[in-house]
């Protein structure tokens, strides 16, 4: 759920030249207005009670977030916690700035350039938040996370992705893994079993294709989707995690046999006809919708997609299952997953109300798991959840995903969380090009290595 990149339509303005362009974040901006409208309504009440009880100063905290969709449990949950907090602290007003993921990324970059970061904002882990940390924009949260035992609610190790030089700068809302969802009915019609090796997967793809069933779907217009799958193949061909780190440490290059083999395997999958025609013009949502509407047998995605798939038509009667990405060429361990520590909340260093903001975020994150559990959005959150998922009415598929979480024995982060943006873009377009033409894997690897050295 968390790291999902909801690409509705292109919305952009191009910086200094200010070519402003048409936007269509209809759902997004509409809800933003609602959200801040609600905030506005509570203000008079807050003022009134402040006058009578406490002489505390009235303050406003801006809370930038990526839960713009009012029908999304996360959005409802956020409003619930915020409302509760505002009731308890009548002098504090939380102003919500709800944007979809891409808008938020762009807005934050623009704000960061002029050093006007909102009190609370959203960043992505590791390499993606590095530039912001380098620019010294965020307040360390080391002391805050110790308060009220917040730190212990997080899964062990997850906070490392948000820690730089011993300082923790952000608190994640999610922790996901890469899995393959499959449509049981279509797999049965095609007469194929859940593949346990990549080679079986290729066979299954060909068999399904032969019977006129779309084997897999992907939203490759947003090129990170293909990269995420590709990186899972690399995790196998490399015989374990850490390939990109070795590249960064200078121990390996992208021309390493493991990387070339991964390109080869990925090409085999594409050439076998695994993905829908015109995959590179489908954005993330459009691609996922094909699976959700029962038009494809398999779908590789982060476990954040569980909620959406669970409530879709295709999941009727427990029709959707999940399996671990198989071994490739006999290599790798299926218990190693693509890890996707989610987007995380950071606090601006220059916040006017630093302490109050920290207190609020502390409260927010403490209540997050409980509320998420109740809203049935607790699969793939970064904190430990007390509660019986089965009894709470979570579906079999959600339970399957939770079981996979228990199997996790390490893994790799997505490419863009490890490498700098320049190299990432070269990798993304290189991977995307495999969808439209057959290329020599060694050549693709060579180009990427050149781009990497160029961007070092």
């Amino acid at each position: 759920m968390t790291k999902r990149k909801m690409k509705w339509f292109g919305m952009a303005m191009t910086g200094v030249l200010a070519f402003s362009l048409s936007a269509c974040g209809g759902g997004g901006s509409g809800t933003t207005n609602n959200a801040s409208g609600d905030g506005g309504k509570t203000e008079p009440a807050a003022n009134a009670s402040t006058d009578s009880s406490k002489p505390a100063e009235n303050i406003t905290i801006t809370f930038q977030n990526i839960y713009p969709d009012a029908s999304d449990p996360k959005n409802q949950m956020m409003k619930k916690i915020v409302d509760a907090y505002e009731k308890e602290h009548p002098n504090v007003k939380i102003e919500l700035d709800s944007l979809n993921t891409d808008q938020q990324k762009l807005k934050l970059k623009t704000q960061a350039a002029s050093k006007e970061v909102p009190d609370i904002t959203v960043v992505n882990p590791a390499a993606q938040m590095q530039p912001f940390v380098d620019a010294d924009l965020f307040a360390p949260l080391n002391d805050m996370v110790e308060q009220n035992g917040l730190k212990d609610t997080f899964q062990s190790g997850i906070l490392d992705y948000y820690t730089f030089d011993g300082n923790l700068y952000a608190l994640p809302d999610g922790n996901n893994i890469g899995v393959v969802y499959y449509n049981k009915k279509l797999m049965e019609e095609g007469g194929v079993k859940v593949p346990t090796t990549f080679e079986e997967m290729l066979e299954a793809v060909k068999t399904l294709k032969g019977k006129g069933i779309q084997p897999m779907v992907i939203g490759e217009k947003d090129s990170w989707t293909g990269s995420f799958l590709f990186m899972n193949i690399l995790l196998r061909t490399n015989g374990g995690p850490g390939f990109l780190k070795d590249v960064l440490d200078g121990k390996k290059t992208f021309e390493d046999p493991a990387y070339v083999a991964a390109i080869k395997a990925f090409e085999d999958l594409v050439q076998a006809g695994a993905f829908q025609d015109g995959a590179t013009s489908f954005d993330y949502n459009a691609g996922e919708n094909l699976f959700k509407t029962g038009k494809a047998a398999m779908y590789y995605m982060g476990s954040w997609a569980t909620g959406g798939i669970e409530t879709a038509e295709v999941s009727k009667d427990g029709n959707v299952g999940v399996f671990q990405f198989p071994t490739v060429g006999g290599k790798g361990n299926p218990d190693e997953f693509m890890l996707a520590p989610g987007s995380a909340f950071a606090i601006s260093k220059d916040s006017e109300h630093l302490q109050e903001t920290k207190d609020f975020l502390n409260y927010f994150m403490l209540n997050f798991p409980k509320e998420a559990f109740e809203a049935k959005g607790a699969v793939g959150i970064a904190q430990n959840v007390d509660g019986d998922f089965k009894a709470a009415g979570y579906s079999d598929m959600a339970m399957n995903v939770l079981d996979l979480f228990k199997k996790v024995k390490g893994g790799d982060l997505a490419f863009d969380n490890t490498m700098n943006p320049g190299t990432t873009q070269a990798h993304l377009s290189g991977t995307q090009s495999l969808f439209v033409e057959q290329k020599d894997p060694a050549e693709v690897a060579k180009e990427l290595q050149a781009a990497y050295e160029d961007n070092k």
Partner: protein
Amino acid sequence: MNVLKVSRWTIAAFILPCLIVYVGLVFVPILVSLYSGMLDWNGIGKSTFVGFHNYVKMFTHDSVFWPSVRRTFTLAGFSMLVQVPIALFVAVLITRFVRRPNFLVSSYFLPVILSVAIIGQLWKTIYNPASMGGMINGILTSLGLESWTHSWLTEPKIAIYSIILVSLWQYLGYHILIQFTGIQNIPSEIYEAAKIDGADGFKADRYITLPMVLPILKISIVLSFIGSLQSFDLIMVMTGGGPAHATEVLASHMYNMSFITMKYGYGSAIANVLIAMCLIATVLINALFNRLDKRYS
């Protein structure tokens, strides 16, 4: 000035607010971007001054830059040499044969007022593979022309032309409206006089309409050229510059560099090249039309 009987200072005072806004919103950003085009800067953190390094890299090392320039000019070429002439032709036909042209002109104009995001989604669906309900491929298949079907937006060689077609379709009505208005403004006496002299129909168009509408045609051409250089939104909605940069144009390349790859300085350098191109092209087009003007007057 003296005719108005107001002092120059008064005039200056009235011009000033507009001038300040204009300078502040146009010239200052251009100057800032000239400066940031010489920085190695990710847009957030510290920046280092690198002089013209960004430009050198752009012209010699950037494998996406020149193809983007080529595509940008292809789009501009189609727009100026195909779209505008068609628009003029349609405008002439409407003026001549349609008695109440308003409805027709408004209908042609309709796509212009639709949001690009909507147009993009609409055409994406039209271009889809037949299995996904794509209209063009569906029609081709039902005509038995399976071999003509393509995945229009994802084959690197044809994707950009598919987008150009949409762009031409969308702004055709805009240019028809401009030309149509231009033709309407030609006094009818001239045509009547010409008719007496024996110039009628297309002959009249050749010797009266075309020269008389030339200034309007110039506006159309300049607008279509600059519009093509700035084309960005449609590409973002339809392909995002992909597959693998196959539909990247200058503006989208600039955007990707500035905001996605986080090379803000480099992106600014591309923006400056874009500004330079716009200026040069406007001057050239003006010069060309001045010559044409002289010849016809």
